[in-house]
């Protein structure tokens, strides 16, 4: 099974001729991802790592029928590219791009939702169904098939944890990067629901952090709907409060979002919370044996 993407997923890379685009196309191909097309306006007819490049997503779709897209395009053009992918019928859209205006993200995600498409990100490391399909920028070597589903707010920290899990002998089913922006397409709850239904996933690891209320909402959801064991690591215990949004933003969260509040919410519904990243495999061992 795996969630959102699998070995049948046909991937299109938008911005494939750029530095990041071509580098990560090579990495994804090396992982075994079925990349069928690239898009780069004005570069149609070229090839990148053997992948045919098209001027537009519709042109790519006519010939290659991709169903998922990953975007390596500058923030100012990301909404245009993502809507192009959506309009061309992609069902999974993964904007790696950082710094997309928040209102652009809101438009993209609203539009995707009404079309039944999933937006992974923006500002995400991507999504990988281990051994089947990697869409994103995570380092290949750590993603081996196994029983642990991982859902993370931050990239590198999740690589760390996935690497620790692998060292301890636990592979991953699917690893999902929610994305670091204020508005992202998926939240913990969406992914937890998929993992709960996924035959390959036996243990779910949440990699969260301070700020927002996503972990608290996840806790409420877990209580009612998740029967599989869930582990969490939350970053930011010692972090400075940092810059806050204006008052109106703060009122939405009303004292939620602190490290302590998140740990309490999760532990109250039976989620084990690791104090440091490397403790995750130890807790996994207790559960999976």
């Amino acid at each position, binding site marked *: 099974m795996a969630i959102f993407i699998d070995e049948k997923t046909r991937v299109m890379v938008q911005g494939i001729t750029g530095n990041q685009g071509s580098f990560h196309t090579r990495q994804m191909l090396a992982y075994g991802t079925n990349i069928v097309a690239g898009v780069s306006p004005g570069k149609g007819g070229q090839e990148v790592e053997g992948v045919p490049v098209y001027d537009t997503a519709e042109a790519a779709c006519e010939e290659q029928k991709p169903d998922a897209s990953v975007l390596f395009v500058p923030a100012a053009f990301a909404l245009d590219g993502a809507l192009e992918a959506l309009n061309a019928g992609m069902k999974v859209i993964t904007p790696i791009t950082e710094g997309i*205006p928040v209102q652009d993200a809101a438009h993209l995600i609203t539009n995707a939702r009404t079309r039944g498409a999933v937006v992974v990100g923006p500002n995400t490391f991507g999504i990988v169904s281990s051994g089947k399909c990697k869409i994103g920028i995570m380092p290949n070597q750590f993603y081996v098939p196994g029983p642990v589903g991982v859902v993370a707010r931050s990239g*590198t*920290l999740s690589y*760390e944890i996935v690497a620790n899990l692998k060292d301890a002998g636990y592979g991953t089913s699917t690893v999902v990067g929610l994305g670091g922006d204020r508005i992202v397409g998926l*939240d913990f709850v969406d992914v937890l629901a998929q993992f709960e239904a996924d035959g390959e996933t036996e243990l779910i690891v949440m990699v969260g952090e301070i700020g927002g209320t996503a972990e608290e909402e996840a806790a409420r959801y877990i209580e009612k709907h998740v029967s599989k064991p869930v582990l969490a690591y939350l970053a930011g*215990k*010692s*972090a400075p409060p940092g810059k806050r949004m*204006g008052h109106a933003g703060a009122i939405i969260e009303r004292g939620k979002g602190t490290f302590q509040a998140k740990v309490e919410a999760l532990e109250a519904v039976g989620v084990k919370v690791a104090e440091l*990243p490397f403790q995750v495999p130890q807790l996994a061992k207790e559960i999976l044996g």
Partner: protein
Amino acid sequence: MKLFEYMGKDLFREHGIPLPEGRVATTPEEVQGAAAEIGPVVIKSQVLAGKRGKAGGISFADPPEEAREEAERILQMEIGGYPVECVLVESKIQIDREYYLSITIDGALRSPVVLASLEGGMDIEEVPEELIVKYPLDVSIGLKPFAAREICRRLGLKGTEAKEFGAILVKLYRLFCARDAELVEINPLVVSGDRLLAADAKVTIDDDALFRQKDLPVVEERTDLEKKANELGLAYVELEGDIAVMANGAGMAMATLDMIDYYGGKPANFLDAGGGAGVEQTARALELLLATEPRVIMINIFGGITRCDDVANAFATVKKEKGIDMPVVFRLVGTNEEEGRKILEETGVDAYPTMQESAQKAAELASS
């Protein structure tokens, strides 16, 4: 980017949101002149900090001579660490009631949300939740009059007041969209006779959208180091300790601090090298950390979009060109790890394979 009240009010004016008459002034003489034209006034210090009133930064004055005196005092103040550089001189309005109205982004709902309350004039966080109407907006519909009617109904506003409130709300949403705002807030929205007036304006523009809001004034709130880091596309935060930390990714940076803290170390600052910084950029980032003169530098890179060889190359370059005196603890795994390690070895620095080893080592070195 937070805007000063007077800038927010310029945007309000642009969108037809009713305001008290007012002028910006930078000298007591200008204030006196404005007061002479306007009549009884309120003089409001323009700083980005909140609680200006409590700090004495807002003052009512009449006649003009008094306005001049008050301005003299206020223009010399420093509020919340910010010096007052100008004031807004506004007509003193009759205040019958004070409401609250704002639009902001709700990450959990993935949409803009309207917050409205009949309890305005105080910090909205102090208003009980049940007295606040929270109305999420669907961006595919926008804020249409029906939403304004529903919000008024929930507030209990009727008649002309509801109509004016609704009209202001629709305009405020237009401003919110047109200006890529993260927050537009009117607190208080004053009922003055049969009119509604925006007595204050708080507007925060999405930093990521500034590229298409080039006609807005630039308001700089960052420290010099933060600014320098931001210009390199990096996030920089100053802390109290002695270990300078560079990591890539906000989560990783936080986890690195957590781990240093766990082993008894004290971070001096941290640089989130973010995703995909190249050699040049990373070198500049390193120089920035060096300039803070920490006891130890810890670099924790888990390469994804960031490539280990780029980071190693940057380090090698800086080491060669500028020299690095303090101990450096390196942790380097992920994309192009092999290449990166090889380059590091050539500079005589070893990379630790795990975060805990490197964090522990950094803490040890700093306390030795």
